[in-house]
């Protein structure tokens, strides 16, 4: 079920009524309701793949309990590796099987030997990368004794499949989310209204910004061979906003929906396009994945303890794995590598933690230096996104080559320029609102709170009408494919 669908608009109020008016007296019933609703939410897309979630849930629940009673370190390790193997095994099969088979065959044919292997027609289960990492966090934390394993199967199953963030995150840590299932949730009007406000902004980002930009990004990327340099630059910028609006919009809706039901999820995006360097960008982009890799990969690999060389090596590993996590294509790996290269000078100069605070805090406008730094960082991100969006490496390189050709100085040429003009106007409005709210959890968290209610209501109506205006068709979220 998509957040930007009529189905979800019907599903959410029904769930709200059942949750707060029917099952609110009993925590177990409430958790059971979350579980059933989450399975319906997921099964709406394809019920067959529910079996994968259920299987992962049973495995990790059982291993968690065994880890509790097992003191022998070798046996504990075996249990941990079993969980990792099964979870990553599913992920590997559904997501990476064809990639490895194809590359294996290509490698052999490069050396003049043809091997008769063929790829399989595999459907990638929606959200598998997200819930796999979430359940893994549970087993690893239990193994490390950072978290007490749960005896409550329903709570655990609801934690794994919690519908607001099941298919595209934020990837929650068991240490943060699971305990929230044990505590009685009480309704808080202010939090619920705040949740609705965040849902509204998330829908605006998805439907108005991302989907409008997608139309032009798709048109330009799909026909890049016939486009001039300036059009290609515009295409890359449209995609840059598409992916941000799409993914951070999803996160906002997920966090807002959770707040309606008394849950707090972590912030996943913190205005990344206002970053002054790439290190700051990566502290603000897909925070739940970056911190997951930091805690479960970077630190176990030695983190920064072994000096500069180890820090650089581990940073490259993180970025390459992160690229590969996004998809089984060399384009994602190069995207990861490019980001690691962006990071390298900052690491060498030990400047990767120089911009920790909100940019231009307390000021209306950034300084000239800050503006240049933000523009430079944004340009680097735009360049990297070309690899992320391209069909393959040849496409990406030819796109970049043409982008920097003499045709860069020509006027952009593509279909529906008038619509593109409206989209750019929306983008300018969006950037201004995001800039105003850059110190908050989401852009409109505090904007207008001091306005008179009728004025605020009109502003929200304006956002709703913009969403309805732009909602021609229900577009999938990009991150569903990851």
């Amino acid at each position: 079920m998509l957040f930007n669908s009529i189905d979800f608009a019907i599903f959410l109020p029904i769930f709200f009524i059942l949750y707060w008016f029917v099952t609110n007296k009993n925590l177990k019933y409430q958790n059971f309701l979350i579980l059933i609703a989450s399975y319906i939410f997921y099964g709406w897309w394809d019920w067959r793949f529910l079996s994968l979630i259920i299987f992962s849930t049973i495995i990790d629940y059982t291993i968690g309990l065994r880890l509790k009673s097992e003191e022998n370190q070798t046996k504990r390790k075996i249990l941990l590796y079993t969980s990792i193997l099964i979870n990553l095994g599913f992920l590997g099969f559904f997501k990476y099987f064809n990639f490895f088979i194809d590359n294996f065959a290509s490698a052999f044919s490069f050396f003049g030997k043809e091997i008769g292997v063929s790829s399989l027609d595999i459907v990638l289960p929606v959200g598998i990368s997200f819930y796999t990492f979430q359940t893994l966090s549970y087993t690893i934390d239990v193994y490390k004794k950072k978290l007490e394993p749960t005896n409550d199967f329903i709570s655990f199953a609801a934690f794994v499949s919690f519908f607001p963030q099941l298919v595209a995150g934020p990837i929650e840590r068991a240490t943060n989310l699971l305990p929230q299932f044990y505590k009685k949730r009480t309704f808080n009007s202010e939090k619920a209204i705040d949740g609705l406000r965040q849902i509204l902004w998330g829908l605006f980002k998805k439907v108005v910004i991302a989907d409008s930009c997608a139309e032009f990004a798709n048109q330009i990327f799909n026909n890049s061979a016939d486009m001039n340099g300036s059009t290609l630059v515009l295409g890359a910028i449209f995609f840059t906003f598409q992916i941000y609006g799409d993914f951070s919009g999803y996160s906002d809706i997920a966090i807002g929906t959770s707040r309606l039901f008394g849950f707090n999820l972590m912030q996943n995006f913190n205005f990344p396009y206002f970053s002054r360097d790439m290190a700051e960008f990566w502290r603000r982009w897909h925070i739940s994945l970056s911190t997951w890799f930091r805690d479960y990969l970077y630190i176990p690999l030695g983190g920064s303890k072994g000096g500069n060389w180890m820090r650089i090596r581990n940073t490259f590993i993180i970025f390459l794995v992160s690229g590969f996590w996004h998809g089984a294509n060399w384009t994602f790996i190069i995207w990861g590598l490019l980001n690691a290269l962006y990071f390298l000078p900052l690491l060498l100069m030990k400047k990767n933690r120089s911009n920790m605070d909100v940019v231009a805090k307390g000021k209306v406008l950034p300084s000239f230096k800050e503006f240049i730094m933000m523009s430079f960082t944004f340009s680097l991100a735009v360049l990297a996104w070309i690899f992320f969006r391209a069909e393959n490496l040849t496409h990406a390189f030819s796109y970049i080559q043409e982008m920097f050709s003499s045709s860069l100085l020509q006027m952009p040429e593509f279909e529906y320029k008038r619509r593109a003009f409206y989209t750019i106007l929306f983008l300018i409005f969006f950037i201004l609102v995001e800039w105003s709210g850059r110190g908050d959890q989401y852009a409109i968290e505090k904007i207008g709170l001091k306005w008179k209610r009728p004025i605020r209501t009109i502003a929200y109506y304006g956002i709703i009408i913009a969403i309805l205006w732009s909602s021609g068709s229900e577009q999938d979220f990009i991150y569903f494919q990851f």
Partner: protein
Amino acid sequence: MKYFLKRIFSFFIPLVVVLSVFLFYAENELSNFPSTFQIKAKYFKQNMDNIEVLILGSSHNQDALNPELFSDLNVANLAMGGQTLRIDEALLETYIDKLPNLKYVFFELSYHNLEHKFDAKYFKNNLYFKYYDINLFEREVNFKDYSIFLSNPIFYLRYLNPNKEKVDLNKYGYLTKMTNDEVDKIFLNHNYDEAKIMSDTNSMILTRHRYKDLNAYKKNKKSFEQMIKLCSDRKIQPIILMPPVFKSYYKSYLKDKNERRLEFVSYLEKKYPSIVVMDFEQNPNFKVTDFKNDDHLNLKGAEKFSKIINKELNYLSIEFNKENYPNK
């Protein structure tokens, strides 16, 4: 909770009321607006028992063939701008057995058709559902699918403008007067000056088909062949039509894309000897003044073309005899 519900209701109720009234008005206006879809479907459904010629395809066939100009045969032109082969297939599958007198089906095989991707989220799918009762959504129907306005609010808002130009359509749903749309006036705006037209190599009309889609090609071939089979099994004459396009268009073809199309035509001709191919794509009888833009005939060109096709059909109908099928 009471406070929350009070605020939610006071926020949403006025909005829902206003939007519902607006939606009701919009749906009503759009349903009554004389559109090509509405009139074509009305004519088609009222005359199913008599229809002898069915024309499918995209805007190329839609603009090129005026059913009014076919003298001895009852013709329905269901071709429509943006109509892919998958939609043609759905229309044919749904209606072929409800057309007892059907003798000929025209399939468009212009340069773009085979690599034009079908989109289950295409906003016109709601119109096909409303007027032809076909579900192209590739899922269960939901209530939004019944609404024309909600399928593409931005697009349809302009139809709610009371000053919106009403189009002139004949009873077959064919446009009988040039519209004021910019794409319909491209050649006119160039004063039919060939040099100017030929130098405009980056016009939207030319670039919009400059893509390749092998995946769509594979699927469309399957749909096309399925349609040929449907006709052949019922002894209905399939005719592959390549309507005229201006040289600015055919000179911009991607070589491999065009070759794939021609290869497919040869394959069909070999496999289904009953097929008739009418290739007018580069026909020298069509001059610059017969086109409204690079790949669409204007009213004058369409009149000329419809009469030619009518004549061709008359020749075919002398030969046509279900007992002797195939008749090539």
